[in-house]
């Protein structure tokens, strides 16, 4: 018999970025909000305090801040005819857990999508014709435009204190910005981060190669900043411990650094940690969510009734919850029917390593989004017609840190161990750089999420099953853009002693880290027949259930997802506040 809690206006599942934004905003409207977080409470002090946080082994290698897979994981296979097996330890992506979620341990690379990304299917067909799309490619338009999202992108940037150099502002190009970016209604809140030798070398070479470099928009504050909620962030110290770590200085945007100081004291907000939501509960007619069921820290089953449910967990967890709760129709890859789980996508990464003779880089002088990039080969920036693929990538030289276990590189010929490897490691550490090709991932019929028939989590719920592999389109794209990165490397001064290209090859492998940019499964659109949520992140079938997150992306574009899902969350809040609260029901 479940314990029944007193009903509240809003229950938020998870307490990372999207739920923290939703709770902060909806409590302003006087609503009573409860957030349920499966992991522990965490705050900048003491959890990310200096010097303990500078521990690469604990946080960078043993994943202290990330999901404990003994409690829950997912299963994985490349192809439908294989048996999916559990992801037994973290690898390809690093799932968050605990207060702040994955935004605690991100790098802070804060991109907007390109305007045509949001209508990518229409854009591609207009330019290249319907036949250009492979038969099994299932990309679609987002059901929202860049113009609709723009003010909400800006709001998110003012939440995070983004440092960057604007491209176009109100139709006027700004020198040094990204010429391919969508128009902005205002510059970035803060000037770009300082550059380092490696990013200067990239900048010069990219120009020589005829491309258009600019500083990456960074959620690492280039100066002290007071955000839209009046929360003050410190200026980034370039400590080099961003991704996989919490920020000791409140310089990297996170719920802790940007929202919790104003949210946590509110009397109409309550956070319960150690509470694993297992189900979203539905009324008998299946058309209304009545609340959620969760397991509390004592193992008790608890029901929390609520008028409005915000499913704000990580992308793959949102999908697992929908499926385990029987919400929407599960996707069937045989027939193509159903939408929940459909269009899972990822990111297609390549790189070029560049070794110099005597150049000094001091790679440990870093910040998670300290980088110089080009958009010349981005999804909608060039003509694909002669290349036979869709999508694209940004090319970038990062200096995110020089952590010795994970952030070193050695030439292939040096081997992986022994005296020769040691010599190469010592020489390369301070005199090399890398160019990443951070590429898109289109959606396909046979890339999807469903429930695993065999394996269960610690709460007895079926694990999510991921079926995913790279397709030729995306591998071809990655080869093309990685070759462009090689062109930049060849134009570098001083002349590199060695350039090594790492082309992305199939099959997709769940072990080596690639990105934590898992998208899709509860995708958005303007038609209930082909989407799970509308542009307000509102579930078509259950209008008092909202599912913000990268789970809503119909396919993955060439940039990191965080800023877009932040903007979508603010867009959702706008819809709830301006219309839903007065007249609950579908907003579209």
């Amino acid at each position, binding site marked *: 018999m479940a314990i029944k809690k007193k009903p509240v206006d809003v229950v938020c599942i998870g307490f990372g970025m999207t739920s923290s934004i939703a709770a902060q905003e909806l409590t302003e409207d006087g609503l009573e909000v409860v957030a349920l977080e499966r992991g522990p409470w965490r705050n900048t002090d003491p959890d990310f305090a200096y010097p303990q946080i500078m521990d690469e082994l604990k946080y960078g290698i043993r994943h202290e801040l990330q999901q404990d897979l003994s409690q829950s994981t997912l299963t994985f296979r490349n192809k439908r005819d294989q*048996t999916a097996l559990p992801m037994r330890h973290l690898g390809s992506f690093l799932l968050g857990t605990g207060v702040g979620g994955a935004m605690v341990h991100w790098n802070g690379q804060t991109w907007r999508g390109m305007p045509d990304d949001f209508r990518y299917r229409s854009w591609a067909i207009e330019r290249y014709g319907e036949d250009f799309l492979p038969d099994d490619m299932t990309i679609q338009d987002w059901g929202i435009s860049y113009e609709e999202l723009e003010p909400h992108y800006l709001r998110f940037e003012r939440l995070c204190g983004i440092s960057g150099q604007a491209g176009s502002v109100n139709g006027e190009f700004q020198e040094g910005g990204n010429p391919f970016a969508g128009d902005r209604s205002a510059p970035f809140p803060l000037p770009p981060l300082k550059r*380092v030798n490696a990013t200067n070398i990239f900048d010069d070479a990219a120009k020589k190669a005829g491309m258009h470099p600019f500083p990456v928009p960074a959620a690492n504050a280039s100066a002290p900043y007071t955000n839209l909620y009046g929360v003050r962030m410190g200026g980034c110290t370039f400590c080099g411990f961003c991704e996989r770590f919490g920020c000791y200085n409140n310089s990297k945007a996170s719920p802790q650094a940007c929202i919790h100081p104003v949210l946590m004291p509110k009397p109409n907000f309550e956070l319960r940690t150690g509470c694993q939501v297992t189900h979203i509960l539905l009324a008998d007619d299946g058309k209304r969510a009545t609340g959620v069921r969760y397991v509390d820290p004592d193992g008790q089953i608890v029901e929390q009734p609520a008028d409005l449910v915000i499913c704000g967990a990580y992308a793959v967890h949102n999908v697992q919850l929908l499926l385990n709760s029987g919400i929407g129709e599960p996707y069937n890859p045989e027939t193509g029917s159903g939408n929940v789980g459909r269009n899972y996508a990822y990111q297609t990464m390549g790189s070029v390593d560049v070794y110099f003779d005597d150049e000094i880089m001091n790679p440990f002088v870093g910040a998670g989004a300290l980088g110089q990039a080009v958009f010349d080969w981005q999804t909608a920036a060039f003509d694909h017609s002669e290349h036979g693929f869709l999508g694209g990538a940004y090319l970038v030289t990062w200096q995110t840190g020089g952590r010795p276990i994970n952030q070193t590189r050695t030439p292939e010929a040096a081997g992986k161990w022994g005296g020769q490897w040691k010599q190469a490691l010592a020489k390369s550490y301070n005199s090399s750089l890398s160019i990443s090709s951070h590429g898109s991932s289109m959606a396909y019929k046979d890339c999807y999420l469903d429930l695993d028939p065999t394996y269960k989590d610690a709460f007895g719920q079926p694990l999510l099953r991921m079926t995913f592999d790279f397709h030729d389109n995306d591998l071809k794209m990655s080869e093309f853009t990685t070759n462009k990165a090689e062109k930049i490397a060849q134009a570098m001064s001083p002349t590199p002693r060695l350039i090594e290209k790492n082309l992305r090859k199939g099959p997709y492998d769940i072990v080596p880290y690639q990105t934590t940019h898992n998208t899709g499964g509860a995708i958005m659109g303007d038609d209930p027949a082909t989407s799970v949520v509308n542009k307000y992140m509102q579930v078509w079938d259950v209008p008092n259930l909202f599912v913000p997150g990268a789970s809503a992306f119909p396919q993955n574009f060439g940039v990191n997802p965080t800023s877009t899902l932040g903007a979508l969350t603010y867009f959702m809040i706008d819809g709830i506040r301006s219309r839903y609260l007065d007249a609950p029901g579908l907003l579209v």
Partner: protein
Amino acid sequence: MTQLDRRKFLKGSAAVAAATGAATLARGAAPTPLAAPSKIGPGGDYQWQVLNADDAAILAAAADRIIPEDELSPAASALGIPEFIDRQLAGPFGSGARWYMQGPFSNGVPSQGYQSRRPPAELMRDGLRALDRRAQQDHGKRFAQLATDQQDDLLTGVDDGVRSLDGIDGVVFFNLLLRMSKEGFLSDPMYGGNRDMAGWTMLGFPGARGNFYTWPERSDQPYPYPPVSIHGV
């Protein structure tokens, strides 16, 4: 490995564990205390926890080939790396406390990653013993007694998957050995390896300094300060 082989070695490893009274691999065990022993390496006063002295000698010999002594740094065994590995194996990492270790188990394909029901501590211990058996089989000597070029050849063969080990996937074992040796070389010395911060000194990594605010504009100039560790030394 065939299913039959797999069943055989799983059965075999259970028997080994029972016979040797292997260290309990408690889930969620607290990290091991970090007080460094006064003398490390063979003949030191470190109390082995997961490995026994015999295993430790194989480990030290192998780790010394991965991180050999040269003008850049002392060898692995002089840096506390075998002890680091044993400490890690005795803690939550070694027991796979944060790994999904529910069955059923099946080998799958390489892109599905680690699928053995052995947690890292058992993989390391069983792997070291299998490596030693392979040395005896091929050369009539224990691994630690081989000449260094014979050790290198054997390890290279295991790493490349051309010299198989008895009852264990040699490539998977070697990967663990390699990654843990590097962790011991390059992690904060509070974990018992990277003695005197020799790994960090070799690289020029300044450790837990935590603030380079004035350095981006000088990032092409030599950084003048030596490393510091989290607790200081």
